Structures are given as structure tokens and as C-alpha cells.
């Protein structure tokens, strides 16, 4: 590598880093103050890019149009942020933490379809930035002048944010709220105004990032989901709520990415996740983040504290229906029921972590996918009999969970969640790229049940047996002394530790158990579909059980299968009847979350003050 190449590559990495910084700083700010995991942040970025694209051609300002368009688009997105915060999110602040996540997930779906409807689904290239369309020679190579402008802009925005946080009263309140928002509220600061303003600023920043990407990237209807993961990585590596950390992390990720192209060309898929995993293992709160203040033992708000018991009679009735119905159901609905069973167990296994353990995983697809791959690989390479492969899949998933869980349980909350995501992405990269063994993105085919089990109804009973036993086992585990101890650790780790509980060991065991049953769900699903693909280990697959658990009600294990049934049924029906399934499904989810802010089974719990 010549010095000239190193310089150019560094500059390229920095230009990318500045855009990342704009998006991530907004996300970090919103999370730091409101604790909302805002999946829709990427959608706001996409919306701003499309708005900039349209405004730049529509505005009659000549060469200035593009720049005015960028500002206007960012402002428009900021206003949208305010609307979303006031109209939607504010309704569910009292719900257990993470219910806002469900709303922002619904928003992602809705905005994606709105963009497709308004702007069409064709890929688009936006206008070049007037005055900055060319390139300047640096070290014997041409470097885009627009990228140089971005490199200059990044530090300016960072400085402006620093001034805002350290030299204004509003900034002081924001920093205080990031540290301890209950104390800030107790001191008489109007939280609603604070939250709304933070949402506006955060949305403005991502909007700015989206608009400024227009001359560099193509506009697509999937640019929301492609950016959001990277933004979360930057935020977590930097430390949640730390703008300086976001800056540092953006530079780190941008530059590592740029040099990865030269040094490790085959690692593009996985590089940033490896970086994130290493950073989190070494520094559990990111580079510049601080340990969360947990003095009041607020952990219980993940699960809402109170227990909900579903009457045994209802459970017996559901089991009876599931056992008796299939022979008279049309074939397709038998297939759908098998899918529901698999996802019920998948969501149930996540509930052990989220509900009983207070550990939210963003990477539970690793269990599901590795269970599926475990079974498929055994059949392909060892020609294992189907039932043996079926039983071995979960063991593979549990083994992987034991390995990664060892590191994950050292972290808490969002950092735990992001480390699970990092490991899931590493698993994804492995199955995606190890062509000779896993078949890469073309997957493994021919994963069908043994001949005597091949009819839908027969396979249904195997699935019912596996998933029913899995759910029963999870239910026992959650109510056994082990489960109760896990709850104690969730509600107050320090007190549990003081009473002689080995908190991490309990959490680790819970991760392994959840891995096993998540794997069993994946195996069941694999033999239903007959094939296994890397997307079984992908991020959307991790989000699905999260949505199901929240939708059904995180307070009880029964919420998981209910959420799975409702979500899968809605998804199946809506997709059949409309092209705009994202819009309809998103809208239905929004209504459900607002109507049942504690999940559908949450209505059975004691009502909190309105």
C-alpha cells in the first residue's frame, strides 16, 4: 500500500463516516433521552432523501435548489418526527419499555409503502450537488469535491451539537435526562416537551444525512433498512446517548470499512459486526458511553412487573382444538398452523430471555437459523435419518448459544441486545459465505420430512408434539425456582447477587435454554419449507419474534404464542389480499399497540392509571 493510496482510502472512509455520524447522532440522542429503540429512524432518512430528490428539481432556485432542498427535507422530517412523537409514541410511554419499538416497527412498514406509492419502486439517481459535482486531484488521484465538503461538514455539525449540549440550558437538561430522566422529571422539567424536542432534533439530523446522501447513493425503497443496522452499530460502539462517541465510532467504522476493501475483500459482510463485538466485549458500554444508572432497580419495567395467569381451562381448550382440528382443516391451513406453531415456540423461547430474564435479544434468529442449518447439514453431509437431524438441530443451536451467551451475559440491556445482534450477523455471514458447506445464499435444498411423515397432517402432529412439548418445558422452567431466580436477577441484579445468586450463571443458562428451543422452532420450520437459507439467520428474522412477544403481551409466556398466531394470521391474510401489505399490516399493528399498550394479554393485567 502506497502512502497515496492510504490517504485516499482514509478520505473516502471519512466521507462515509460523516454521513453515518449525522444519522447515528440523531439515533443516539433519541435513545439516550427517551430510551426508544427507534427502528423508524432509517425510514426518516429514506423519506428525506426522496423529498430532497423531488424538491431539488421542483424548486425554482437554480443552483441553490439542491442545498435548499436538503434543509427543507430535513425540516420536514423533523416536523414528521414531532407528529409521530406526539400522536403515537406519547400514548405508549407508560407501557413497558420496548412497546415503542413495536410502534416504530409499524412505522417502518407504513413509510416503506408510502414511499413506494408516491415515488414508485424504480431505482433513482438524484441530482449531483451543484458546484461540487467534480473532483480534485489529491496525491495523484481524483477525489470527489463533494466528499471533501462532507468531511468538512461533519466536524461543524459535531461542534454545533457540542455547543448545544454544553452551552445551552436545553442541552444541560438533555444531558441530565440521558443520565437519569426520572430525576430530571422530579425536578419539575416538562418531560413531554423535552422528548418532543429531542425527537425533532434527532429526526432533523437523520434527515440531513438522507438529503446529503442523494448525490452519492441511488434512491431505493430499501435504503431505510440498509442504513438502520449500520446506524445502530455506530451508536452502540460509540456509547448510547454520547454524541462524541457517535462521532468517534462513525470515523472508526467508516475508516475500517474503507481499508477492509483493500485488506479483507471477502469480509465486507461481517467486518463492522466483528468490530462491534470486540468493542462491546472490551468496553461493555461502548467507547464513550457510561454505565447506566440503575440505583432504583428499574429493570422490572421491561416485563411490566405484574404477572398474568391464563386460566388452565383456556390452555386445555387451545390444546384440544390444536389436536383435533387439523384432519378437518383444508391443507393450506394445516401448513399455516405448522408455521404458527414454529413461531409460537420461537417467540416463547425469546420470552424466557425477554420476559423472565429481562434480556432483550436482537439476535435470536441465530438460534432459529442454526437449528435449521444444524438439521439440514446433518442430512446433507452425514445422511442422517430425518428424525435424528430433527433432534440434533436444537443441540447445535444450544451449543452456539452457550458460546456466544458467555460473552453476552456480561452486558446489560441495549448492549446485550446489540452483542446478540453482532453474533447473529457473524453467524449469518458464515452460512452466507461458506459455499462449500452451507450452499451460501442458494441455501440447502431437499430438507423434507421422512416419507412416513410427509403428509401435511402427519408432519403437523410431529410439529405439535415438538412445539407443544417445548412450550410446556418453557412454562415449567419459567415457574420453577430457576425461573423465579432469573426474575429476581432481572428486577434487581445487585440484590439478587447479594442474596447469593450467581446472576450471570443463571442468565447464561437461560440463554442456552432459549437457544435450544429457538433451534427446535427453526428445525420444525426447516422441514416445513424443505429448504434452509441464510435469511433464517437474518435481522428481520430476529425482529419477528420480538414483535410477536410484545404484541401478545410480554408479561406472560402465553403472550408469545398468541402474538405469533395473531401476527402470522394477519401477515398471511393481508399479503393475500393487497399489494400494499406493508401499509395495511403496519396500520393494523399501530391500532393494536395503541389499543393494547401492554400487549393483547395485557388487558388481563391490573390497569395502571391512565
Amino acid at each position: 500500500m502506497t502512502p497515496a493510496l492510504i490517504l485516499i482510502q482514509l478520505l473516502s472512509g471519512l466521507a462515509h463516516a460523516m454521513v453515518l455520524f449525522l444519522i447515528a447522532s440523531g439515533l443516539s440522542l433519541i435513545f439516550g433521552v427517551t430510551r426508544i429503540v427507534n427502528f423508524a429512524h432509517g425510514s426518516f432518512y429514506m423519506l428525506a432523501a426522496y423529498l430532497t430528490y423531488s424538491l431539488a428539481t421542483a424548486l425554482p432556485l437554480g443552483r441553490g435548489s439542491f442545498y435548499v432542498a436538503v434543509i427543507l427535507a430535513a425540516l420536514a422530517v423533523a416536523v414528521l418526527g414531532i407528529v409521530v412523537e406526539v400522536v403515537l409514541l406519547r400514548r405508549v410511554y407508560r407501557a413497558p419499555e420496548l412497546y415503542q419499538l413495536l410502534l416504530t416497527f409499524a412505522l417502518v412498514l407504513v413509510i416503506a409503502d408510502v414511499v413506494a406509492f408516491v415515488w414508485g419502486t424504480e431505482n433513482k439517481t438524484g441530482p449531483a450537488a451543484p458546484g461540487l459535482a467534480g473532483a480534485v486531484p489529491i496525491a495523484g488521484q481524483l477525489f470527489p469535491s463533494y466528499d471533501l465538503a462532507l468531511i468538512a461538514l461533519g466536524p461543524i455539525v459535531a461542534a454545533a451539537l457540542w455547543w448545544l449540549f454544553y452551552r445551552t440550558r436545553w442541552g444541560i437538561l438533555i444531558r441530565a435526562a440521558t443520565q437519569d430522566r426520572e430525576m430530571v422529571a422530579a425536578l419539575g422539567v416538562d418531560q413531554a416537551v423535552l422528548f418532543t424536542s429531542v425527537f425533532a432534533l434527532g429526526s432533523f439530523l437523520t434527515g440531513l444525512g438522507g438529503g446529503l446522501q442523494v448525490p452519492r447513493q441511488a434512491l431505493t425503497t430499501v435504503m431505510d433498512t440498509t442504513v438502520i443496522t449500520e446506524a445502530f452499530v455506530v451508536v452502540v460502539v460509540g456509547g448510547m446517548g454520547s454524541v462524541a462517541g457517535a462521532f468517534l465510532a462513525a470515523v472508526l467504522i467508516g475508516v475500517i470499512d474503507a481499508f477492509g476493501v483493500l485488506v479483507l475483500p471477502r469480509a465486507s459482510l461481517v467486518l463492522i459486526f466483528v468490530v462491534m463485538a470486540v468493542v462491546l466485549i472490551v468496553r461493555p458500554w461502548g467507547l464513550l458511553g457510561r454505565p447506566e444508572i440503575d440505583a432504583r432497580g428499574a429493570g422490572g419495567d421491561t416485563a411490566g412487573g405484574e404477572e398474568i395467569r391464563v386460566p388452565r381451562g383456556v390452555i386445555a381448550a387451545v390444546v384440544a382444538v390444536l389436536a383435533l382440528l387439523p384432519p378437518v382443516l383444508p391443507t393450506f391451513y394445516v401448513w399455516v398452523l405448522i408455521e404458527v406453531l414454529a413461531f409460537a415456540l420461537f417467540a416463547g423461547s425469546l420470552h424466557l430471555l425477554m420476559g423472565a430474564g429481562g434480556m432483550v435479544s436482537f439476535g435470536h434468529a441465530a438460534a432459529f437459523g442454526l437449528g435449521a442449518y444444524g438439521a439440514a447439514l446433518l442430512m446433507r453431509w452425514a445422511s442422517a435419518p430425518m428424525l435424528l437431524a430433527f433432534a440434533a438441530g436444537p443441540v447445535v443451536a444450544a451449543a452456539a448459544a452457550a458460546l456466544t451467551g458467555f460473552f453476552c451475559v456480561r452486558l446489560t440491556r441495549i448492549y446485550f441486545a446489540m452483542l446478540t445482534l453482532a453474533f447473529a450477523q457473524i453467524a449469518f455471514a458464515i452460512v452466507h459465505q461458506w459455499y462449500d458447506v452451507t450452499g451460501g445464499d442458494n441455501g440447502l435444498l431437499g430438507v423434507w420430512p421422512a416419507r412416513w411423515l410427509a403428509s401435511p397432517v402427519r408432519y403437523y402432529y410431529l410439529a405439535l408434539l415438538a412445539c407443544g412439548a417445548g412450550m410446556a418445558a418453557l412454562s415449567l422452567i419459567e415457574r420453577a425456582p430457576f425461573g423465579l431466580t432469573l426474575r429476581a436477577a432481572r428486577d434487581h441484579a445487585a440484590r439478587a447477587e447479594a442474596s447469593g445468586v450467581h446472576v450471570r450463571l443463571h442468565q447464561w443458562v437461560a440463554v442456552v435454554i432459549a437457544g435450544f428451543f429457538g433451534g427446535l422452532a427453526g428445525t420444525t420450520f426447516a422441514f416445513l419449507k424443505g429448504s434452509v437459507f441464510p435469511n433464517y439467520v437474518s435481522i428481520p428474522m430476529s425482529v419477528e419474534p420480538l414483535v410477536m412477544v410484545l404484541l401478545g403481551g410480554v408479561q406472560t409466556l402465553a403472550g408469545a404464542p398468541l402474538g405469533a398466531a395473531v401476527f402470522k394470521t394477519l401477515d398471511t391474510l393481508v399479503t393475500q389480499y393487497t399489494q400494499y401489505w406493508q401499509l395495511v399490516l403496519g396500520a393494523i399493528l399501530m391500532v393494536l399497540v395503541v389499543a393494547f399498550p401492554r400487549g393483547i394479554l395485557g388487558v388481563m393485567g391490573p390497569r395502571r392509571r391512565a
Partner: protein
Amino acid sequence: MRGSRWLGWLAVVLTAMAALPAGAQAPIKIGDVNTYSGIGAPFTGPYRAAVEMTVDEVNAKGGLLGRKVEVIFRDDKGQPAEAVKHAQELVASEKVALITGTFLSNVGLAVSDWAKQNATLFVAAEPLTEAITWSKGHDHVFRVRPNTYEQGRMLADKAGKMKHVKWSTIGPNYEYGKRAWETFRDRLKELKPEVQVVGEHWPTLGKLEPGPFVTAILNENPDALYVSLFGSDWLAFVREAQKRGLFQKTFVVGILLGEPEYIDPLKTEAPEGMLVTGYPWYDIQAPAHKDFVTRFMKRTDKNPVLGSLVGHVTYLAIFEAIRKAGSSDTEKLVAAFRGLKVETPIGPITFRASDGQSTMGAWVGTTKVDAKRGVGIMVNHEYVSGESVLPSDEQVKKLRTGG
């Protein structure tokens, strides 16, 4: 009270699931599963428009075998498992005669394997992976579009006659990108043994940050660059490569890059002088094709793209097979497809008996910006038929048993 509320919900769910769409026997139903949202949407929208046109046209003439033709579209969301679910529903509940469509290779493979297991006819329209008809091929699958192997070979046959020796490549980190490069490279080396590979780049699909890749390629100083980038990645790459002077220094060969799907969004920024496979719809003189273009533009107000042609040809083939079989019975249709000859706007094509691959070809040509229309086009193009690049029946036999 609480229990009954719970039961109420359960009842809602179960009634919703039991509400079956009633199936009428009269029309011939075709199930079309495709990635209509997300990453495939820019490609499948124009495909669907052409399919709807083709079906309306056949129904206006009285349908097939005295029955109307009805297409049921399902969005697989880019997920193989979702596509399998739709196949299950379309066959079990809607009683479709066959499944067609699919865009992404892995979705195509998943549906194909399901079709094999369930003895259903699957006519793959757009997926490019060779595996569908070769290593994972079977009796019940047919494919319309020329695959990665064919298109890579078409380009290599031309590039092999050129002076370029040092080659670099960039493509998505997918089987498609890898195979597009390997088939091209292997053929090129056969024709020109002195060819050297100086760099291979595999960015993550849909997440290309182009600057560092352009610098890296410039630094390898290749004579030529082989590009298999997909959709939006290619668009982002072009901008950055233009600014950094890559196209001035390096000859570019691009698979699919002459298709309107890829070149139209670039408008006048389309790089000139690239050797590409694509679809010069504006310049194909066959009267039947001109007529197809006129009908399509009249109906949609948009120009056709390759997906539109593939959609049209796919359904013409399905209709022809139904006529030949005189029935919508699966096994009769499968028999009809074997060696089926179809008249299409671009001439006759055949579905080979040995592997089910159609002999539809592709156009190979050079890119140029058409200042009048403000968009990139292909010039000096030549239609290369599938027959001229496909392996022989003997080789196919080996490919099928070897995998």
C-alpha cells in the same frame, strides 16, 4: 370475564383462518409468486404489467381451451420461505395449474424444490442461477431467461477478441456475482490464456459504499473491469467511478448492465463504451416486437424493460403449453413443456427437453448515451441465441447427476 376475552380473540383468529376464498372451477388459474416489494420491486413491477397485458390479450380472444385465464399474484417479500408458503396456498387452496414467476435465485430454488417434492409444475421466469435447471434441476422445472452461465459466456466470447489482459472484477457477495464472474473468467482464459486477474471485490449486496472500491480498483490498474453489480449498487458505483476517472482508464464489461432496468435510472450519466448484455427494445426491428412495444407503451405509458419482455414471453410459453397439452393437468403440461416451441416477439424459442432451459437469448452490445432521449442505449448490438452458448445435452446430463 378475562377468560372469555381471551377466548374471543382466539375465535377471531380461528374464524379469520377458516374464512376460505371460494374456488371456482371455470378459469384456468396460474399462480405467480414474485418479489413485488423491497429489493425486487424495481424489476418485478414492469414484469407484472406485461403479464397482465398478456393475460388480458388472451382472454380478449376467448381464453384457452374455452376457459378464461386468471393469474393470482403473490408477493414473496424476497424470502424463500414466504415463497414456499404462497406456493402451498396457491396449489392447495386456489388449485392453480402451475406456479411461475420468481426473481431472486434463492427464491427460485426454494420454489423449485417444493415443486419437485409436490409434483407441481414450476416455470421460473427470471432467476439467473444455473442450479435451477442443472445441478438442482428436475422434471417439473423450466426456466425462461438466459442464465448466468449463458450471459457470462456471451460476453467472454466478445471480450476474448479484445486486447485486454489484466482484469479486475466487482460484484455482489452472492452466488450470482461469483458465478457471473467465474463463467466469464473461465471462458475468457480458454480464449486468451495470457489473461491475468488482478483483483476481485465482493461488496455486500445493497450496501455498497463505492468510494473505497473505486480507489482499490484504480490502484490495481487493470486493463478491464468485469461488473456484475446489482440495481442500486451499480448506480452508486457509476457516480463515484465517473468522478474518480475510472471509466476513462478502464474498459468495462457488464453483465445485464444494458438492460433498461439498469441503464435508464442513470439518464445521461450512463457510462459509454461498455460491453454489456441487455435489451435494446428501441432498436429491435422485428415487426412482432415493434407491435409488442407499442401495445405495452399504450397500456402502461412506460417503455418496456427486460422484465416486461420476460413476463410476456413466459406467459406466451405457458399458454402455448396449455394449448399443446389440451389440458391444465400437471403431468400433461410437463410433457408439453418438454421441447415446447413458442413463437415470441423476438422469434421462436424452445424449451430444451434435456434441462428445461429455454433458448431465449440476450443482446450483446456497446453502451452510448442517446442525447435525444437523455438516456443510455446499446449500439452495435447483436442478438445471441441461447443455443449458441448452452452446453450440449451430454454435458447437461453430467451437470445434473454431478450436483
